[in-house]
């Protein structure tokens, strides 16, 4: 029973990170109809930026903030420079462009930083918490991870629902032509959507890197799991992305805990395959199937 609780909490903590990646993918998908395969690589790059800042300034939090800002800027630049020219073209063009970007960023990081694992500092202690003598299987840093992702998701939800910029973003995502006719500067909204997604990705990179270590490919698996979470959640729904992330985190944690850690990635990919085969529109959506 204690073991079960431990696996559940571990799973929720990992799931928060998948949720953050999933949310960033959903933001971009809803706004521009593009699946950004470079999302993980962009998060890797901002994590390296954080590491540089932390080395120089000896301040974790300065690195944290700079990485988030870098995510925002890189996301916006990617939309303007790389994605804008392929909008309105066949969807495969955008797929190839983002895969190209993935290879470019990972190659660049390899040139700059080499391929060795770097350790990445956590925000808070990674000593396991316990109640009395019962170990909970989670750390202060895990709690920070959960709170940070939930806060980011809540901030996004509030922005989308209650602010005029959020209304413009949603109108652009739902019906760009009508939004334009009402004077919404759609181009700016698309850039902003990518920037926000870049920020979320950067947050995920900061949160996961203490556990995975940082190297040019360290976000690849996280990206695939984040993508799986997004697909479980239906790819259209921000709430679905968070739930999908948590479900996936817990399932993988049980698999790893009870069956051995080597099956985790296998289970992750199996989950992706099963959802795509049997519920391509996600577990929670009632929408009809669409091409992915």
């Amino acid at each position: 029973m204690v073991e079960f609780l431990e696996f559940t909490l571990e799973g929720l903590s990992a799931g928060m990170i998948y949720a953050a990646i999933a949310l960033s993918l959903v933001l971009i998908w809803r706004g521009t109809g593009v699946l950004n395969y470079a999302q993980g690589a962009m998060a890797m790059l901002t994590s390296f930026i954080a590491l540089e800042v932390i080395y120089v300034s000896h301040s974790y939090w300065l690195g944290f903030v700079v990485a988030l800002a870098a995510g925002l800027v890189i996301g916006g630049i990617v939309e303007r420079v790389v994605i804008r020219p392929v909008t309105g073209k066949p969807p495969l063009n955008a797929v190839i462009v983002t895969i190209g970007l993935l290879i470019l960023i990972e190659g660049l990081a390899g040139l700059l930083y080499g391929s060795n694992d770097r350790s990445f500092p956590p925000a808070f202690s990674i000593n396991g918490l316990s109640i009395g003598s019962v170990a909970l299987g989670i750390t202060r840093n895990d709690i920070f991870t959960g709170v940070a992702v939930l806060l980011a998701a809540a901030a996004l939800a509030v922005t989308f629902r209650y602010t005029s910029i959020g209304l413009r973003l949603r109108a652009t995502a739902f019906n760009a032509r009508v939004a334009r006719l009402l004077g919404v500067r759609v181009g700016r909204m698309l850039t902003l959507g990518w920037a926000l997604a870049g920020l979320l990705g950067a947050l995920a990179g900061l949160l996961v890197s203490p556990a995975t270590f940082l190297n040019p490919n360290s976000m690849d698996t996280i990206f695939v799991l984040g993508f799986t979470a997004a697909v479980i959640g239906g790819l259209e729904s921000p709430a679905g992305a968070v739930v999908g992330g948590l479900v996936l985190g817990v399932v993988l944690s049980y698999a790893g805990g009870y069956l051995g850690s080597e099956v985790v990635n296998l289970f992750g990919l199996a989950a992706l395959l099963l959802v795509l085969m049997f519920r391509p529109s996600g577990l929670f959506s009632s929408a009809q199937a669409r091409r992915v």
Partner: protein
Amino acid sequence: MSEATLVVAGVTAGYGDAPVLREVSVTAAAGTITAVLGANGAGKTTLLRAIDGSLKLSAGRVVLDGTELSGRRPEEVSRAGVAHVPEGQGVISELTVAENLRLGLLLRPRADRAAALSDIYERFAVLAKRRNLPASTLSGGERQMLVIARALATRPRVLLLDEPSLGLAPKIVSEVLDLIRRLKDEIGLTIVLVEQNARSALAIADTGLVLNLGTVVVTAPAGQLAADEALRRHYLGF
């Protein structure tokens, strides 16, 4: 609200290489309704898209009260005071009625928005009742009211209406047309009305324009067009 004259001068435009409109000229005088009539494929909707900036013109100009609109993007044309109510899919059905309206109000100063919204609800009681429901739950007539109300929310000087009566029950059609006439009378809006239903459009219009295969056949006072039996039978089908 100021009255504004919209001038379309020698516009040639289309999709790809083949022009749909050829040297179309029309002047929508301030505070009048101009009905754009013609068969399917005559270029009526294309004319509105040429005005609103969705289509690049290969020749000609669009000018609103001396301000050149041609060459601007749709969001800038709408900011200049031209509201286009597109045919059919104009409602953003995922948003609520209130959100659709708020979207129209975004071009106004923040301080004016609340008052403007209650003005709209006063004029459109049916929308007030449904304000917090998703727009997808509205009937066809209610949707048409919503897109017109939302266009008015932008405080336009020119209103472009594309087939506002399409798919509506006859009783609702007359309500919509009545609303359009009141917008002209009460607010002094300049209205360009594209209609398949020529008879009812001419009944409320000041000027009629008949398009055929992308060129202007005739521009004349609405009453004169309605009285011209040969023209009616040939181009307008009534």
